[in-house]
């Protein structure tokens, strides 16, 4: 799957590597900014309250 995606990236091998790093950075940014905070609020229970 990832091998096929890698082959789809345009340009010579060095450009493909730069693409890969850029996409990875964008994915990590999206995860840390939106996905993980949402997952934490939705699925995790960290409430230290009594009665909660």
């Amino acid at each position, binding site marked *: 799957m990832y091998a096929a995606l890698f082959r789809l990236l345009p340009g010579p091998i060095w450009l493909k590597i730069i693409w890969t790093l850029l996409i990875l950075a964008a994915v990590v940014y999206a995860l840390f900014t939106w996905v*993980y905070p949402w997952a934490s609020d939705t699925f995790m229970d*960290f*409430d230290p309250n*009594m009665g909660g």
Partner: protein
Amino acid sequence: MQHARDRKIGVGSIVLGVLGELMITAGLLIGGYILWNVWWDSNQSAAVAEKSVADFQGELEPAPRQAAEIKTEGDPPPVTQAISGDTFGILIVPKWYGITNNAMPLKEGTTPAVLDQAAAGHYENTAMPGEIGNFSVAGHRRSHGNSFRRIDLLEKGDQVIVETKDTWYIYEVTGHEIVLPNQVEVIAPVPGKPNEQPTERMMTMTTCHSVTMGEWGNDHRWVTHSKFVGWMDRADGMPEQVLNDPEVK
């Protein structure tokens, strides 16, 4: 490797390959979440808490750098009821010096919006610091700034200090209990005895705890009780324990 690519690849191995890659991806996503939870988000929350503490202290005259005398006679100065979400003091746990965040903003209310800022949240409708009754606060254990993470280190006699704009309220730990989340009587005016009238000035801290996963779980609550031992005026100086804090300049 041209000849390898020419070989016919079965549908089964493609499916297996994709499945394997998806599972690796899921593993990385979960690992990333853990990293975010214990490192990134905790740092973010701690930074917010640090700013709240700095803002609160910034409005005050610095206390003289000398040990103040503890007062035990009569009633301590009352603390005005705070508006929900407001910082009305700082909670200091000297035992945590050098171990974990030991001075955190004390805010009114225990909603996620308050607690997720790595604050100690004051249970509304419980006593204010120094009052007769049970001044009760909640804090996160191993998330959103790890406010009360090392509550397990607190032993009988350890101090818990509340700093307000003009007073230091000194409590000493009397003990702890591990209870179910619904055992709300631990924050009753007389801890554990919801029907009794209070005569003593108590304090209770509650945080997450798991009997199987320790600080990582949330199936129980770690509850630490303390008893008021006296107060100091800010104008006189600061508690000796706070003077010893390497972070107080």
